[in-house]
C-alpha cells in the first residue's frame, strides 16, 4: 500500500474532525446556560457521588493491564502469521503451536496464582 491509498482516510478525518468539533462547540456558544448544583454533578442523574473519583486504584487494575499487554503482543505475532499461513505448511503451524504452548504455561501460572480473582 502506498500513502495515496490512505487518501480516503485523510478525507474522512478532515470531514469528521470539524464535524465533531462543531457539535461540541456550537451548543456551548449558542445554547442557554442556567447552571445549578444538581446540573453540575458529575453524573447528573442516578447515584449521588459519595467520594472523589480521583483516588488511588487497587493493584488489580495494574495486573489486568499487564496481562492485557502480554496477550496483546501475542496477538501482534499471530497477525502476520495468519496472513501467510497458507504458504507456511505444517512447520508454521507447529512453530506457532510451540509459541502459544509456552504462553499457555504463563496463562496457567497467572490463573493458578489467582491474578484473575478480584478481591
Amino acid at each position, binding site marked *: 500500500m502506498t500513502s495515496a491509498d490512505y487518501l480516503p482516510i485523510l478525507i474522512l478525518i478532515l470531514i469528521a474532525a470539524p464535524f465533531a468539533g462543531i457539535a461540541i462547540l456550537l451548543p456551548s456558544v449558542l445554547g442557554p446556560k442556567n447552571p445549578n448544583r444538581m446540573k453540575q454533578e458529575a453524573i447528573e442523574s442516578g447515584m449521588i457521588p459519595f467520594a472523589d473519583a480521583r483516588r488511588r486504584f487497587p493493584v488489580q487494575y495494574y495486573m489486568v493491564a499487564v496481562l492485557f499487554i502480554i496477550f496483546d503482543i501475542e496477538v501482534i505475532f499471530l497477525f502476520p502469521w495468519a496472513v501467510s499461513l497458507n504458504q507456511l505448511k505444517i512447520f508454521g503451524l507447529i512453530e506457532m503451536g510451540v509459541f502459544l504452548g*509456552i504462553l499457555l*504455561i504463563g496463562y*496457567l*501460572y497467572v490463573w*493458578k496464582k489467582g491474578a484473575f480473582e478480584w478481591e
Partner: protein
Amino acid sequence: MNALDILQLLSPELILALTGFVVVSVDLAMRRRDEGRTAATIALLGLGGALVATLLLAFAGTSTVEAFTLAIDPYSLFFKALAIVSVGLVILASISFMRGKSRYLGEYYALLVFAALAISLAVSATNLVMVYLGIEFLSITSYILASYFRQDLRSQEAGVKYFLYGAVAGAVMLYGISLLYGATGSVDLATVGALFSAEGDQRLLGIAAIILLLAGFGFKASLVPFHQWAPDTYEGAPTPITAFLSTASKAAGFAVAGRVFMVALPNLVADWTAILGSLAILSMTLGNLVALKQTNLKRLLAYSSIAQAGYIVLGLAALNPGGDFDGVGGLLIYLLAYLFTNIGAFLVVMAIEQHSGSVDLAAYNGLIKRAPALALWMTLFLLSLAGIPPLAGFFGKFFVFAAVVERNLLTLAAIAAVNAVVAAFYYLNIVRAMFFVESEEQKPVSVAAGLSAALAISGIMVLVIGIAAQPFITWISRSVEMVLVSGM
C-alpha cells in the same frame, strides 16, 4: 542440515528452556510448599544436563555452524558453559540462603535457569535482532531477581535502579543497531561487517554506532561510564543474585561486545579498540579508587567488579590477531578465572551474612578464629582477585597484560599495573581484618551444605586453573581462533 542436527546443536538451549518450564509447572502443581527444594533440584539437574550437552558439543570438535540467527561455535560454547556453571553455583548457594526469605522460591529458580538461557542465546547471536532480544531477555529476568525481596526497600531500590538504567541503556543500544541497519540494510552481523566500510563519513557513523552500542554492552559489563547502577544494585539485591550479576551477566556483556565488534565492525577495529582502551582506564581507576573507601563488603566488591571489568576489557582493547597474545584469549581466560573467584568471594559474603546478618567489614574481624575454613577460602579468592600467582586470577591478568604490552600500548599497561597495586591494598585489607583484628564475637560460623559445596567447587577451580592452566588455555585458544578467523 536436517532437523535432528539442528536440535542437537541447540541442545543446551532446549534443555535450559525445558528445565525452566518444568520448574514453573512443578512449582504450580505442588500442593505442599517445600521452600523451593524441589525446584532447586530440578533446576540443578537441568543445568547439569545443559552443561554436559555444551561440553559434548565443545569437545566434539564442532566447527562453526550458523543457523537461524545463532552461531554454534567454540566461542559461544565457552560462554554457555561459563553461564551454566555460574548459575549452577548460585542455585547451590541459594538453597540455604534464600530459605524462609521469600514465599516464591520456585519462580526464583526458574528465573535463574531462564537467565542462563538468555545468556546462552545472547552469546551465540549472529544477528542484531537476536543480540538485542538476548540482552533484553537477560535484563528483564535480572530486574525481577534483583528486587526479589519484596519487604526489603534496599532490594526494591536495587531492582528499580537497575530497571531504569537498563531501559535507557537498551534503548540507546537499539539506536546504535538502527544506525548499522540503516547504513547496510542488514541486521546480520557478517553482512554488516562486509558492507560497512571505514571510509569517510561512514567511519563517523560507525563510531557513533560503537558508542551507542556500548551503552548496552557496557551496562551489562558495568564499565564506566555505564556503571552507575552497579553499587546500589549489587548492595541491595539478594547476595546470590549479586554474585550472578557480577559474573555470568557481566561475561555476557563482554561476549556480545566481542562478537559484534569483531564480526560486524572489523573495518573500524582501530576506533573501537581505542574507545574500549579509554573505558578500561576509566573503569579501572574509578572502580579501584572508590573501592578503597568502602566498608560494606557488597559495595566494595561492586566497585572491585567495576575495576575488574576495566582489566577484562583490556583484552578487547588490545586485540591482536595472529600475535602470541591475541587479547581475546586473555579476555576469555580472565572471565573464566574471575567467574570462580568472584562467585567464591560472594559465597563467603553469603555465609557471613547468614550467620551475622551483616555485610560490613567489621563482621569479618577475627574470622580466622571463628571460621578458619571460611577465612582461608576468602583469602584465596581475594588473592586471586588481586592477581597473585599461582592462582587463577593471575593468569587472567597475565594474558591480558601481555597482549597490551605486545601491542605496545605502554601507557595502558602502566595504568593497569598501578591499578593492580591499588586494588591489592583493599583486597589485603580484608585479609588483615580476618587475620589480625580481634572481634568480640566468638561464636563459630556454621555453613550450610549447599553453600559449602559451591564454595569448595569455586575454591578448587581457582586453584586448578592456577596450577594446571594449560588445558584451559588450549581450549580457550581454540575457541578464539575460530571467531578470529571468521571475523577478522
